[in-house]
């Protein structure tokens, strides 16, 4: 029994290491000087340095990384909160009254399977007309489209799982539609909404293609900004700096995932115990 458990822990450590290997390797590289990277490509660091991060955040540097981060934050928040706001009432109507289950629901959910590149050029033309190009709002709106399928799916399923009697009780208590939705159903959907928010935020933050296409200067998100540091074809890539900016770009969603994980995990196990 002891040995089996020991082996299990070893396998676990190994799996964790292999799954996270690229992250670990990049993290280590980000603490190496250029000289050390070319001399010592291994996983140990002889002279750790923060110089790469200093370069990334250098206020006099070529790019304003804080602005990229701010853009990503704003756009990702719009792209996460908006779908929740739009999908929650619709999800209730779908789950409880079957509204739009024939067309709207499948159409919206199937968006997930569609490569959204398809809409790139027409969207570009439309954004230009509306003055949405290179704005955080514009980027946020398209990120919202990206997140709608998962938001709608999760919220619809969640509402369907809620005990219907609670809503009947609320109707007996004289709750209006708005009260019912926002005072009764919404609070009970909170774990699901947190889940949607976290998944959505991570997806929005990590989105690359639309950031590349629809922003130029004012609204460039960090994933695209990071690729600026990865410029190729010209003066040479500084691999250490590139590694550092990748880590900076990956840090917010990873931290969010790690911190909020407990929250999700708690609600999951809670649900399981209740059966």
């Amino acid at each position, binding site marked *: 029994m002891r040995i089996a458990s020991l082996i299990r822990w070893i396998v676990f450590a190994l799996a964790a290491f292999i799954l996270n290997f690229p992250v670990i390797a990049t993290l280590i590289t980000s603490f190496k000087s*250029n*000289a050390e990277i*070319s*001399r010592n*490509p291994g996983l140990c660091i002889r002279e750790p340095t923060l110089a790469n991060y200093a370069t990334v955040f250098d206020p006099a540097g*070529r*790019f304003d990384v804080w602005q990229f981060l701010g853009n990503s934050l704003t756009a990702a928040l719009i792209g996460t909160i908006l779908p929740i706001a739009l999908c929650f009432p619709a999800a209730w109507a779908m789950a409880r009254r079957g509204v739009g289950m024939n067309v709207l629901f499948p159409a919206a959910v199937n968006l997930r399977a569609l490569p959204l590149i398809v809409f*790139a*050029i027409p969207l*570009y*033309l439309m954004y*230009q*007309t*509306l*003055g*949405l*190009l*290179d*704005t*955080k*709002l514009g980027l946020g709106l398209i990120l919202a489209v990206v997140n709608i399928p998962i938001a709608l799916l999760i919220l619809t399923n969640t509402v369907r799982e809620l005990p219907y009697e609670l809503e009947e009780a609320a109707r007996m208590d004289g709750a209006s539609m708005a009260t019912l939705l926002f005072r009764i159903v919404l609070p009970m959907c909170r774990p699901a909404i947190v889940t949607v928010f976290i998944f959505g935020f991570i997806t929005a933050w990590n989105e690359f293609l639309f950031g*590349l*296409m629809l922003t*130029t*200067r*004012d609204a*460039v998100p960090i994933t*695209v900004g990071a*690729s*600026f*540091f*990865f*410029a*190729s*074809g*010209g*003066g*040479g*890539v*500084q*691999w250490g700096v590139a590694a550092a900016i990748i880590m900076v770009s990956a840090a917010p969603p990873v931290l969010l995932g790690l911190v909020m994980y407990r929250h999700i995990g708690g609600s999951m196990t809670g649900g399981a115990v209740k059966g």
Partner: protein
Amino acid sequence: MTFRKKMLTATALSALMATAAQAEVTVLGWPGGPEEEALRAVTEIYNAKDDVAEENKVELLFFSRDGFFDKLQADLAAGSDAFDVNLLATYSIGRYAPYMEPITLSGEAEGVFGDTVLSTMQFEGAQYGVPTDLSMHFLFFRSDLMEELMGDEDAKATYAAISEEYLGTAMEPVAPDEMTWEDFAATALYFSRSVNPDSPTRYGTVLQMKNLLFNMMVFQSLPRAYGADWMDADGNITVDSEAYRTGLEMYKMLYDAGATPTDSLSYEFPEANAAFTSGQVAMMVQWNGASGALTGAESAPMTADVTDSVAPPTGPEGRFTHIHGLGLGLNKNAQNPDGAKAFLEWLSTEEAAVAYATAGGAPGLTGTAIEAVAEARPDLVPLGEFASNYGYVMNGATGANALSIYELQAQEFTGYWGDTQSLDEALSAAEAGMADLLK
């Protein structure tokens, strides 16, 4: 949606949005390299001038190199006015010309750049841009290793044996500046451990073979030295030629023999530089833009001191380097065309060109201009020299579809190198595609 509603929505939305920067003259430059640094430097000078009005000051804009041309094309085609002045390159002029306005250069321009360089920014007889940088290829090599090879009799014997085995004739090592492509191949093999276990380096060279258009430009100079061209005078596609076959087969032979890293099929500029600066590669053909990265003590601590460069190797038809210019031109939808024109005109003066060169750019200069920068930038002297002596542009490489042709070649040629198709298949596919694109 009626027009009025549309306007209302647009107004409402723009009111919602962050205040758009009141751009003066917005310039979209080539990011990430010495070109960017140089552009920043001259912009500072320009903006400090007394006679430049506040609303004509220049603001710079950069985005990623990854997909740069794709995005620029989409922006231009959609009629973007996010920038007044944008980057253009010799091989993309044809593609971008419909969305740009020809410009007038300063009177000094001809004396500063010379006709050859100015012509890299011309399309159908009109001047579309100010040439800022000249891009070509150098042969970068490890002078220490080359000297050692030239002075060691045992090494020469090994060299002869290797060249006999792989190239059919016993050869003697020659200095890099006198190399033919055959010598290049023999030297690359000699310095590869898979061929010569005693080699001081793991690989003789590093070829950039990723399926990417820029890599095709690096490759072109090899077949060109054997007389390759895209079209003959009558407009027939001539890619299926002995010259291309020789070049393609040489790459393949080197790759299969292990003279270039196993993963070269996924290598582009940064990977190749990283390989070279690790000290495990004896030589490579690379863009002149890599000079700084390969010879800087900071970026190449192990090899900077012993790295030298010459023009690419020679062949039966001569010595060639693929050449193209980068420049800046005027967007048709510019919001401030007059301010942009003024800036572009100034950019073509000697004052600007010298400042640009001094700040790290790589303009092709002649006359008094090159004399003025010769001390600060000795590497620019051979650049101009190389450009006029060895520079070439393939017949058809400034057409609207030049980029697509490079894409196509990249697709087919890498397929041959990667063993997913035969040489004949690759060439006939390239020929068919090119015929379509060059119509």
